């Protein structure tokens, strides 16, 4: 009997990822459009363009990535399907990257319009703590050996985190309103001229595409990691 000469080519080669490439190109085009072909806001100056990266990343991180993480966490505890855990952990990690961008670009914008890198307003603070929690989520996953236990623990944390964020938001909001701060120049949001609107919505679309692409790659990595763990288990 001759051993089959099948090479596991599907495993060995990292596949091209058209979605990822399209997403990268889309984000790059949006960046070019935002920086070179979108009018400068008269009051805030060029720094207002940070909005296109900052706001769309923030929206996707908060309302898509973390909501997805919370929902898949609940579903995992209910259905105990490993796929749900993979989606939850992927959404958390990709969401963390988006949140990191939000937290890094925010101060640059804030410095120009508020005159301060950081202010402890409700939104900033809850984003910061969300970032901390998701870092903790990652550390927790890294610290648990058993796969089922890891999935259950992180699902529990994911659900509790979703419950916590509104509390932080509310309490920081009250903290601010009860302690009036020196008046800052607030970024008013008068209706944007259409050219800016187009840039804003295309940025949102591009980042959404990027999120989907990254989530897919990260999900693949999670699947591969489990497969490797299975193989190592078999050989042990």
């Amino acid at each position, binding site marked *: 009997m001759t*051993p*089959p000469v099948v*090479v*596991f080519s599907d*495993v*060995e*080669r*990292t596949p091209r990822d058209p979605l*990822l490439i399209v997403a*990268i190109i889309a*984000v790059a085009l949006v*960046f070019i459009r*935002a*920086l070179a072909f979108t009018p*400068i*806001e*008269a*009051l*805030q*100056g*060029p*720094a*207002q*363009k*940070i909005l296109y*990266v*900052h706001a769309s*990343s923030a929206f996707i991180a908060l309302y898509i990535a973390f909501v997805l993480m919370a929902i898949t966490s609940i579903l995992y505890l209910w259905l105990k399907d490993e796929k749900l855990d993979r989606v939850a952990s992927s959404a958390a990690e*990709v969401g963390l*990257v988006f949140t*990191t*961008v939000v937290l*890094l*670009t925010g101060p*640059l*914008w804030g*410095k*120009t319009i508020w005159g301060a890198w950081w202010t402890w307003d409700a939104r900033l603070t809850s984003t910061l703590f969300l970032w901390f929690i998701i870092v903790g989520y990652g550390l927790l996953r890294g610290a648990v050996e058993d796969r089922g236990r890891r999935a259950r623990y992180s699902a529990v944390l994911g659900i509790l985190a979703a419950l916590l964020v509104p509390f932080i938001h509310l309490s920081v909001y009250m903290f601010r309103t009860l302690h009036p701060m020196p008046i800052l120049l607030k970024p008013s949001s008068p209706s944007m001229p259409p050219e800016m609107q187009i840039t804003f919505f295309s940025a949102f679309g591009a980042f959404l595409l*990027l999120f989907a692409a*990254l989530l897919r*790659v*990260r999900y*693949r*990595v999670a699947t*591969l*990691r489990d*497969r*490797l763990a299975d*193989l*190592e288990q*078999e*050989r042990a």
Partner: protein
Amino acid sequence: MTPDNGGYATAAYFIASVVYLGYIVSLRVRERNLRRRIAQLSSQARAESHTPAGA
């Protein structure tokens, strides 16, 4: 009077690009390493299972 703060915008776009690209690279590297390791292990497993006993 439009303020001259173009540097901040450039910096923000630059930082965002670095973070996103860095993450993409890290994902791809992780994926490649995992695939290599899996291929290596499963080829070893196949080699072992096709070695006749006593050979």
